[in-house]
């Protein structure tokens, strides 16, 4: 009954949002086959000598009002994915559908309009605020650019400062260097909310904060999500934080999605060997419960020349011949709330010696909650 648990975290999300175009069941965001390769140039002619496959055919759905957590190790493409969603960089290929409308397509949603509806908060709260502007002006700026009067924008900024827990009289006139890291991150969050977005992408938004401050900001994000009926894409390498905030989790490895599903299923019963190893690498806070054997050996390989077949095979204890030859696909037919994983062990008759066993296992306990309605 883990699905009901997942839902309860969202209970106060108002069901009817006037801005809803596609209806409640229409996913907030659909990404299909997103790809971004960065060329590496070299030589005298500055020719492309290699390509970093930062995001390589990524597809997923974000439902309205949910928090989708994105985890994976450094360099696996999380930030590139975020920038693709925001159209801060153009994808090489793939499409993005925002509440039923294709983004940047003919007759679709213009990037400019999409960016009002989708905002982003970064890890580096220092560089994203203008150092020469009082923070309340930084917050108001977004509305002014979009045509609001100075007065109205300032009012909105001050109201938002209250909402993020900063007294506008005390903190509004301050400059970024006069604020602590946690306070700056609150300002960044306020700034992201000023255009009344529907989706906020949080890219390591709490990672640079101390634990005691991180806890404050996480509480704030929970509160704001309810108040403003927000949908979050929450990117982090901190598996505990992701478990705490997410309804569903997407696991990336070397530019690809290796597993996606409801948070309880992923954490209680990870399918992909990489997800399992990642979770087993978490440190316990109990000294009597130490990890004595490392779950994985070695570092993640270079995304310039990823291994053939399954990209995880060089570190996977279950790797077999088929894993080298064929790339396991992420099943796309599990439904938006389903649990899918890209591993030959979970595909019937894939040629992996464990394939039937796992595939069968997978059929039996799959929860009835997965079929919509």
């Amino acid at each position, binding site marked *: 009954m883990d699905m009901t*648990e997942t839902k*309860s*975290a969202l209970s106060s999300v108002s069901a009817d949002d006037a801005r809803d175009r596609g209806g409640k069941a229409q996913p907030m965001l659909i990404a299909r086959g997103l790809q971004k390769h960065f060329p590496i140039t070299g030589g005298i002619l500055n020719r492309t000598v290699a390509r970093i496959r930062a995001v390589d055919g990524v597809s997923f759905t974000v439902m309205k009002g949910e928090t989708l957590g994105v985890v994976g*190790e*450094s360099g696996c493409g999380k930030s590139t994915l975020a920038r693709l969603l925001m159209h801060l960089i153009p994808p090489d290929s793939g499409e993005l559908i925002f509440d039923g409308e294709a983004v940047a397509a003919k007759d679709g949603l213009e990037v400019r309009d999409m960016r009002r509806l989708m905002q982003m908060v970064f890890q580096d709260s220092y560089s994203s605020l203008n150092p020469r502007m009082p923070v309340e002006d930084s917050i108001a700026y977004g509305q002014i650019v979009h045509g609001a009067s100075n007065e109205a924008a300032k009012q909105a900024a001050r109201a938002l400062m209250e909402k993020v827990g900063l007294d506008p009289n005390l903190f509004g006139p301050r400059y970024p260097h006069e604020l*602590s*890291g*946690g*306070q700056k991150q609150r300002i960044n969050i306020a700034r992201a909310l000023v255009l009344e977005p529907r989706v906020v992408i949080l890219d390591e938004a709490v990672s640079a904060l*101390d*634990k*005691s*401050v*991180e*806890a*404050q900001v*996480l*509480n704030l994000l*929970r509160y704001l999500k309810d108040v403003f009926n927000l949908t979050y894409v929450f990117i982090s*390498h*901190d*598996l*505990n*934080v992701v*478990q*705490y*905030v997410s309804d569903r989790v997407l696991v990336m490895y070397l530019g690809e999605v290796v597993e996606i599903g409801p*948070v309880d299923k992923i*954490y209680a019963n990870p399918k992909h060997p990489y997800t399992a*190893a*990642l979770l087993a*690498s*978490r*440190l*316990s*806070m*109990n*000294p*009597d*419960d*130490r*990890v*004595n*054997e*490392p*779950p*994985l*050996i*070695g*570092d*993640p390989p270079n995304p310039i020349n990823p291994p053939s077949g399954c990209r995880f095979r060089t570190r996977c204890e279950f790797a077999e011949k088929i894993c080298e030859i064929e790339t396991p696909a992420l099943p796309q037919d599990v439904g938006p709330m389903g649990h899918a994983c890209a591993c030959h062990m979970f595909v019937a008759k894939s040629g992996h010696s464990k394939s039937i066993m796992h595939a069968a296992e997978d059929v039996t306990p799959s929860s009835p909650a997965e079929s919509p309605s």
Partner: protein
Amino acid sequence: MTTETKTPLVSVRDLNVKFVSREATVNAVNDVSLTVQHGEVLCIIGESGSGKSVSMRALMRLLPERRAVISGKLAVDGQDVLALKGKELAAFRGGEAAMIFQEPMTALDPVYTVGHQIAETVRRHTGCSFEEGLARALELLELVKVPSAKRRLNAFPHELSGGLRQRAMIALALSCRPKLLLADEPTTALDATVQIQVLILMRKLQQELGMGMIFVTHDLGVAAEIADRVAVMYAGRIVETGTVQEVLTDPKHPYTKGMLSSTVHGNMRGQDIEAIPGSPPDLRALPTGCSFGPRCAFADSHCLEQLPPEVMLGNDRLARCFKVDAAPAAADAGSVPA
């Protein structure tokens, strides 16, 4: 403390470090005392700016002499660290005591190969030949489990992945068989799957080599994984010490309790986290009373006016707080009024 016959490996008494400039004085480390026995791992836990790195740098005499005003007594294996000069100091650093950092490039020189750097260090400290140094370098890279160690001797630091670079730095630090290893967040920048490998490796090496280690971290999970004892720092002071079990499973100081309750774990989903309100004090203007007072749920006027004493809660176990009771009341000593 108790009557100890053996000299401890590290003895720090009333360490104070101030950074003095024309504009302000930063009280980075205030009256810190700590002890590390031979073969023991002490973790210093604390948030950003609490003085962890400055304390370590003071122990290695790595602070800028002109700006940092250091007072107190620092002894490593009976040697008065603050009295070391010239050659003695050079022999001490990297000899008896070695340090590793979060960012390996602060310790590794980008223009020399890993093998060259280790060999050179060994040669300098032991007076052996460069070739003998290289042989030792290979031994060390194998010891820290660098795959294809022989080939990696000839690698430049930038040619290695993050995890391997960290291992190379550990190898360099171990090259002269230090008695004391100071580790300043060496795994913080690593990915989860790599961090656990390095932690397990470090614990194993520490035990096999019988080294003492001070390991700085802000991550309670890392402390749980590697520490024998823990010291919790807040605003330049040690506010609680004890064994890792004592501190992490039965914290006494309100700050330690707050740190534990504000650390997120999965089964808290759907409910607010018990966060500590506010943020740490400005080290240029510390509060007169308890530095945690302004954020503490238990604080009364006394706490805000006077510096709380170090209350002994047991052998090597203390908390700096008015609201904890001293040892004799053993059973629920220090249970802070809830």
